[in-house]
């Protein structure tokens, strides 16, 4: 299923894999900022993006990366790309 709640769960699972503080990810909301609130550093963001690309067989370009500020942004970008 490629609906919002399913993708969100999968994305948070990927983020949790690279998070230093996994408790923050467990409590993440749609509006949680990936860098600022979940304390994900830039090197791990790249790891997360590569995992997302692999999992959904999509390419996340620079413009999409820049827009991926909150959890909901990441989910919406993935949904837009897999439904394109």
């Amino acid at each position, binding site marked *: 299923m490629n609906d919002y709640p399913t993708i969100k769960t999968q994305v948070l699972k990927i983020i949790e894999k690279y998070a230093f503080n996994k408790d923050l990810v467990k409590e993440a909301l749609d509006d949680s900022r990936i860098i600022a609130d979940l304390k994900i*550093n830039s090197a791990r963001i790249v790891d997360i993006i590569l995992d997302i690309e692999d999992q959904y067989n999509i390419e996340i370009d620079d413009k999409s990366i820049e827009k991926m500020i909150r959890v909901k942004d990441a989910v919406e970008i993935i949904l837009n790309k897999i439904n394109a």
Partner: protein
Amino acid sequence: MLNKYAIGNDIIDLKLSDKQVWRQKRFLDKIFTTNEFQYFKPDTTNDFIIELLFSCKESAYKYFVKQGRERAFNPHSFSVCELINRENHSKIQYSGIIECDQGNCKFISEVNPSRYVHSLCFTNDCSFSSIFIKSIGTVNENSISEIAGLELKHFISGLSGIDESSLELVKDQITLIPYIAYKGRILPFDISISHDGEYIAVAATKTE
């Protein structure tokens, strides 16, 4: 107009960077501009140059957030356009220039082989920053912010002469830019905090 006192710093724990992942072309393509590929070969055996460039770009990102840039991740927005090796007998140091669409900034980087790389970005006018790097060992991730705050207060206490127990660390909730306050007043220091693995790096410069 650029804030001439702004600084941004970044530290990378070399033990934590996954060499296999960090040398993959896909990974490098996401981070580095075409121009930056001139500084290394993807299959480089050099143990720190990729981490060093990454650290430069991350410190530039923090620097430009202080210049009003939105806190969004896009490593291709920053490009190391000059990299000079200043290696001498005792230290491995680099300096250079990073450009982005908002302007340029300078950087200095220092490598402590097998331990860390650290970079500091600053404007042309600001060359008197103090840097403090400390190994804090393995600690619970939940206590990193608290430890970093204590180290920062200790550091600023040494620079300002104010007792560290009277200092307060405050962060802008939107930009996450940190400040040090004393009796409710922001002290005239631009500060930057970085943490990775077992290292904390704090940099400060006086703004008046």
